[in-house]
């Protein structure tokens, strides 16, 4: 019943508690924590061997031992479990509601002289997702930031219950629109693991092509936005232009600027058009031509570097403890990329490097993204050069399946690793599904990174993390 990559086992309470202790010791890394009536599930990876597993514990009297008691990254997922499923994590250090908003919210106190609070959101000045930030500041200096999220909560896990494969796939592709390819891919891989579907090789390569285009578009847009938050408008305009070039090419080649609903279980739903290869090569050539000047300006403008260097430092220890994915982790020394570990096709056939630095400041996160852009450009060239021919989708015959099937997958989106888990019932409908956005293990780190910085640098720090609200709030 369990998938090969992430075998699931039902464990006793003692073993669940032992896993909590191993998370605390750093022997295991937490990749997901979710629940359904009667069972809580955790997805973990062994730090030494990279072996992945899912552990489930039966919740007698609707209770299970809290992981957050020993391992802080589990606290918010456990608060969400309380809100959404009604299970009680025993010993959970923070029992305030998280995704369910009801009544006044007790923000954590801060004590000291001359402190004042600044409430921001959920409606922000810019065009961004909704969330609330409560700053406690001493003059200009942030003493404490506390996030309150959940404003974008629309009940995705509940909407998944009993959904057809098509409907569930559409939902997965709308969990976080900026990562629609990555979410669709993660969900498709989980379904394929569950149903034992073999994906044609051309489809695997096209998926990687879409995923790298999505990574490029987001990295360009976000680097520009970071510069904009330092009031350096020219790079915002220039990087915005590069983003637009990518999404326009995506529309011409695949019929949708964000490439929504292009990846599906069994393969992909669109093939590269006759002139697609030429258009993509022209795009890569244009980007390679434009990029060096922009990087040169970023790196040699003292007033801009003054804002990004040394700002919003995330320590490698915290990045490791939270198993922070993506550029947030890699800018703070965490050498992890789901394309490599556990890895999936066709990346085993592609040459790419995973850039890692230790500095952990805004500048480091910008540089990791610049390096990842270079890698994605090279990856797209390799994909175009080696793209196999053949069919792009294996039809899925869910009706023919008998019994309950489960699958899980880990996919590298632009933000970091996305975990997808799904159980398909005998009728070919989704019995339960859970998709974990990388932001779950990045949002709490933003609170740590901003401490001691000035309030005016918060937009920079926030944008350099660019966590998802919708992906987190579900």
């Amino acid at each position, binding site marked *: 019943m369990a998938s090969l990559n992430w075998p699931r086992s039902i464990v006793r309470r003692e073993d669940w508690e032992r896993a909590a202790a191993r998370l605390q010791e750093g022997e295991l890394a937490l990749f997901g924590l979710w629940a359904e009536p009667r069972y809580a599930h955790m997805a973990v990876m062994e730090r030494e061997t990279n072996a992945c597993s899912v552990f489930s514990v039966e919740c007698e009297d609707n209770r299970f031992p809290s992981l957050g008691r020993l391992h802080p990254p589990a606290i918010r997922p456990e608060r969400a479990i309380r809100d959404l499923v009604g299970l009680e994590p025993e010993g959970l250090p923070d029992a305030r509601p998280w995704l369910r908003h009801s009544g006044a919210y007790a923000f954590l106190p801060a004590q000291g002289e001359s402190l004042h609070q600044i409430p921001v959101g959920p409606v922000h000045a810019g*065009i*961004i997702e*909704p969330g609330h930030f409560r700053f406690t500041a001493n003059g200009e200096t942030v003493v404490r930031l506390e996030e309150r999220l959940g404003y974008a909560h629309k009940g995705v896990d509940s909407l998944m219950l009993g959904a057809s494969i098509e409907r569930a796939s559409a939902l997965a592709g709308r969990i976080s*629109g*900026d990562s629609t390819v990555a979410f669709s891919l993660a969900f498709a891989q989980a379904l394929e693991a569950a149903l034992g579907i073999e994906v044609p090789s051309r489809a695997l390569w096209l998926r990687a092509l879409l995923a790298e285009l999505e990574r490029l578009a987001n990295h360009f847009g976000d680097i520009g936005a970071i510069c904009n938050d330092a009031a350096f408008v020219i790079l915002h*305009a220039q990087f*915005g232009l590069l983003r637009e070039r990518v999404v326009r090419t995506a529309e011409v080649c695949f019929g949708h600027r*964000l490439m929504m609903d292009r990846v599906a279980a069994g393969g992909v739903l669109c093939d590269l058009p006759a002139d697609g290869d030429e258009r993509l090569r022209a795009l890569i050539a244009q980007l390679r031509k434009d990029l060096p000047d922009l990087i040169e300006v970023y790196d040699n403008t003292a007033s801009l570097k003054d804002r990004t260097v040394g700002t919003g430092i995330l320590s490698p220890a915290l990045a490791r403890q939270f198993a922070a994915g993506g550029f947030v982790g890699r800018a703070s020394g965490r050498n992890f990329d789901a394309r490599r570990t556990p890895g999936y096709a066709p990346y085993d056939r592609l040459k790419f490097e995973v850039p890692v630095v230790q500095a952990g400041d805004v500048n480091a996160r910008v540089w990791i993204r610049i390096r990842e852009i270079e890698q994605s450009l090279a990856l797209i060239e390799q994909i175009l050069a080696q793209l196999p021919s053949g069919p792009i989708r294996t039809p899925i015959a869910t009706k023919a399946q008998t019994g309950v099937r489960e699958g899980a997958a880990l996919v590298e989106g632009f933000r970091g690793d996305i975990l997808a888990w799904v159980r398909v019932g005998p009728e070919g409908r989704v019995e339960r599904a859970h998709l974990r956005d990388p932001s779950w293990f990045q949002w709490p780190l933003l609170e740590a990174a901003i401490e001691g910085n000035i309030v005016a640098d918060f937009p920079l720090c926030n944008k350099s993390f660019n966590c998802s609200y919708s992906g987190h709030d579900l």
Partner: protein
Amino acid sequence: MRRLLFKSFVQGILTEPAPAQDDGALAELAARVNQASHKRLGRALSIREVDAGSCNGCELEIHALSNVLYDLERFGLRFVASPRHADVLLVTGPVTVNMREALERTYRVDRVEMDQHQNPP
């Protein structure tokens, strides 16, 4: 930096012309909306966008409207930071339970400012 500025200078303005209104009915509708909005709102239209639970896809595309190729502001359409400055409230997303109050408050501010604009005390 000098190189980039020089390049920008040489390549000229990247902003593309407005799409042509080749559809007669569409052009007529645009003219009527234009007339009505001109009378009620003046030459510019200020928009306050509120994300009430969208997937962030709409936000990315609304951002794109302001990039150098589209430059929405040249048509007098402007996204503003406060509902107090806005003529229009643009809502994205399904309106989640948790965003209901914030959205209603934004809407009420918007309405009050609109009424005062049209019926000055």
